């Protein structure tokens, strides 16, 4: 009798056990569908990728398959897309990354370009100019704008340096 009760309770527990195993750690062999769009171009559209590393406002994070649904604001920084064939990096100006419940990730950003499209010299001169304006005697708004730009350039320099 006890054995029968054990068997039935195990049977009753079985479906939930299957459900739990689906929500465990993501396996590296699983893929997530990535859509990455700019206002003027669509870089990925429902492409199966292994992992996406993003610069979220709260910190850097890597997204694998079956990630928990979430909305992450992006700060200016690198988005790295790892496919089974290799990885590629873009520098993005900021936007949003949304993980949908159906294993889909969408990244919407205003401006993005592959790292090799950036000129180190341009970044350096722009940074100097921005820092000069930020510490100059313009209006508070101008100085803050220059400070935001300087942060972008510093982040770009860091990304290009570690390419």
């Amino acid at each position: 009798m006890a054995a029968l009760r054990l068997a039935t309770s195990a049977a009753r527990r079985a479906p939930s056990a299957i459900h739990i195993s689906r929500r465990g750690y993501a396996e590296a062999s699983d893929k997530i569908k990535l859509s990455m769009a700019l206002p003027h171009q669509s870089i990925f559209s429902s492409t199966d990728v292994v992992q996406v590393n993003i610069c979220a406002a709260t910190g850097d994070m890597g997204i694998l398959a079956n990630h928990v649904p979430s909305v992450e604001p992006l700060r200016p920084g690198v988005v790295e897309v790892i496919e089974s064939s290799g990885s590629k990096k873009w520098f993005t100006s900021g936007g949003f990354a949304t993980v949908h419940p159906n294993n889909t990730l969408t990244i919407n950003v205003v401006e993005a370009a592959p790292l090799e499209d950036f000129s180190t010299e341009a970044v350096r001169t722009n940074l100097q100019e921005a820092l000069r304006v930020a510490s100059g005697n313009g209006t508070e708004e101008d100085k803050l704008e220059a400070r935001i730009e300087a942060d972008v350039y510093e982040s770009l320099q860091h990304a290009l340096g570690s390419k």
Partner: protein
Amino acid sequence: MSAVTWRGVFTFNKYSQITASAVRKSLKEEQRLASEKRGITALRYQVWENGKGGNQVTLDPAQESDPKKKTAAV
């Protein structure tokens, strides 16, 4: 970090415009020229009455004549 301080002064749209233009300005010459036009947001309107168009009014003339010039609009 400016990330915390901009909110009181700029809207999110303005902030993302600033970061986007900074990214555009850092591109290599070829890509930069191609991307420069994207930053322009210009709007003109015209009132039509009895089948005739009135004057065209440009909302932000500075933006249309010199898109690189910074405006505090938006």
